[in-house]
């Protein structure tokens, strides 16, 4: 089981952590809600919780709780631009269906 980052995503996370001045890494997760079942969580991590798995890729720690890992195994976090907008993208092979905007999904 693993989760990876693209180099672009890793660089952005590093840079955001640096300007924030604290934080162990970035948390990827899922939570129920949204228009199509599950929604992604993307947060800074200041301390680990019980049941957290820690991966490291391109020098960035990725923290995932075990329950979320089931839905995110094999996911690659990417960073991209769409017009003026830029942000992170989950390339999740487990997704079978997602809502129009892609903010929530089904496995």
């Amino acid at each position: 089981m693993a989760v990876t980052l693209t180099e672009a995503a890793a660089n952005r996370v590093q840079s955001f952590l640096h300007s924030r001045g604290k934080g162990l890494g970035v948390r990827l997760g899922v939570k129920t809600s949204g228009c199509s079942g599950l929604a992604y969580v993307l947060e800074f991590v200041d301390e680990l919780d019980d049941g957290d798995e820690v991966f490291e890729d391109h020098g960035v720690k990725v923290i995932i709780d075990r329950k979320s890992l089931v839905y995110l195994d094999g996911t690659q976090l990417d960073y991209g631009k769409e017009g003026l907008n830029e942000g992170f993208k989950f390339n999740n092979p487990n997704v079978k269906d997602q809502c129009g905007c892609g903010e929530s999904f089904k496995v």
Partner: protein
Amino acid sequence: MALLQIAEPGQAAAPHQHRLAAGIDLGTTNSLVATVRSGRAETLADGQGNHILPSVVRYTADGVVVGEAARRSAADDPLNTISSVKRLIGRGVADVSSLGSELPYDFVRGESAVPRIRTAAGEVTPIEVSAEILRVLGRRAQDTLGGELSGVVITVPAYFDDAQRQATKDAARLAGLHVYRLLNEPTAAAVAYGLDRGADGVHAIYDLGGGTFDVSVLRLHRGVFEVMATGGDSALGGDDFDMAVAGWILEQAGVSRGADRGTLRHVLDQARSAKEILATQASTTVDVELPTGRWQGSLSRAQLDALIDPLIRKTVHTCRRVLRDAGVSPDEIEDVVMVGGSTRTLRVREMVGEFFGREPLVDIDPDRVVAIGAAIQADVLAGNKPGEEMLLLDVNPLSLGIETMGGLTEKLIPRNTTLPVARAQEFTTFKDGQTAMAVHVVQGERELVADCRSLARFELRGIPPMVAGAARIQVTFSVDADGLLHVEAREQTSGVSASVAVKPSYGLTDDEITGMLQASIEHAQDDMQARRLVEERVEAQRVVEALNAALASDGAELLNTAERATLDQALQRLVDTASSSGDADEVEAAIKRLEKDCEFYVERRMNSGIRKAMAGHRVDEFAQEDGSKAD
């Protein structure tokens, strides 16, 4: 799929519930929009990568052009190209005509209170021109963030009056933006440097923009900025540097003052670029096309300094005055924050640094620092930050309170309390069996309700009947970050409640607030007297009511006719004194006298009460009870 940003721990929003917020620096010369993404505040660029949007709007028959393209066309189309509109916003026609000689626009002469400018696209008001700029920035933020903005924070100069602030809000509404709050520019700059998270101290914000100069002394106290003093010149800025340089160019070229508008624009553009080059180089060449022919010459930094020194000296004089107003000396200032593009001019940094005796803060781009602070504040107001990081930056200008018996004000939230705030106080009933209470919300510093401003009235009904003074009615005042007041009255035993929401500052200008404060100081002595008189009258009324209630219950039983007549007389005397006398001491003395007159009756009532309680018991029974308690 949607692009995500990294949230603070535990703050990831549910899908479609991200609250997008932006900070807008609506400047005289240039405007910017900034936002906080993945915890970092940054200004946003347009499709071409430009962050700064010149505050210039050009009206043509085919539509509206905003920004750099409009600025470039200013020289060719001066009448339809509106710049520095911030100088006009919220101003009346009379104010504008005093600026009018400097402004190359075609003002419509009319009876309207708002100045109107005639353009190729029809007549426009300064509010509409500002709205065009805000609309472009709002759209840029929405394109960048990929969603609707839930709200914006727009910065305004500290000295903006109520009309100018209101006009700025109107412009935002016209542009389809929801304004979380207007934020003072110096406060935004201090927030951008994180001074609000640092140690308590006094800071100076020196803001020399394109068209305005503003210096503020802020005191940070427990995370709250208090403006100690502010001063400035709403008609002094980098534009005046350009004007000075342009004047020099025209003089050197031998052109008289009466240059036409197009020429003046062209020379001003050249003057500005010469000034900007001299921020990094020691000298530059100037090349202008004039009606009299082409003129070329060179301008050195020393020459520039000589031209603008008198203007900078004016700002330093203002700094000295503002420090005096604040009652601090230059060496008490912890940090000097430089704001505004004109602080890039090296001579400005030099003279300001000399005056304050320390290196000014220039790390954050002085053009962007205000927008960045506004974005940080907008992010907090949108609720994207954990509660403890809430910034408390505003204070309520006048005390808020309620009316109590006799028309006195009881202040719940004193003036200068930082917002948001909630305060509660318990009140009680005045009469036996009272089941309703009128709550009258007032604003002001005076002791009597009649001298304060009435904000709202509501009634709390359904209080369970109890003896006077037994009911516990909690009145809670809460003022949110927008200054919206919410008042709730709740009877504690039954839980019945009633509430009202009001906007306390609505319709009050700064002058009116100042007037109200002034009145409270002038009348402080009278007010205290008036308050004491009312208090004594209320006390007299309470004594009379209590005595009447007692007489009704056992007066006939305990008093003979003569005694009753004496008491009735004494009672009447107090009623008369309380209603006719204007002297609190007299009323107080009358109350004392009545209390003395009915001492014997009170004693008799107590004895009779004890007799009743003890009837059918022996004295030693009580002694035994006491003894058992002691065990």
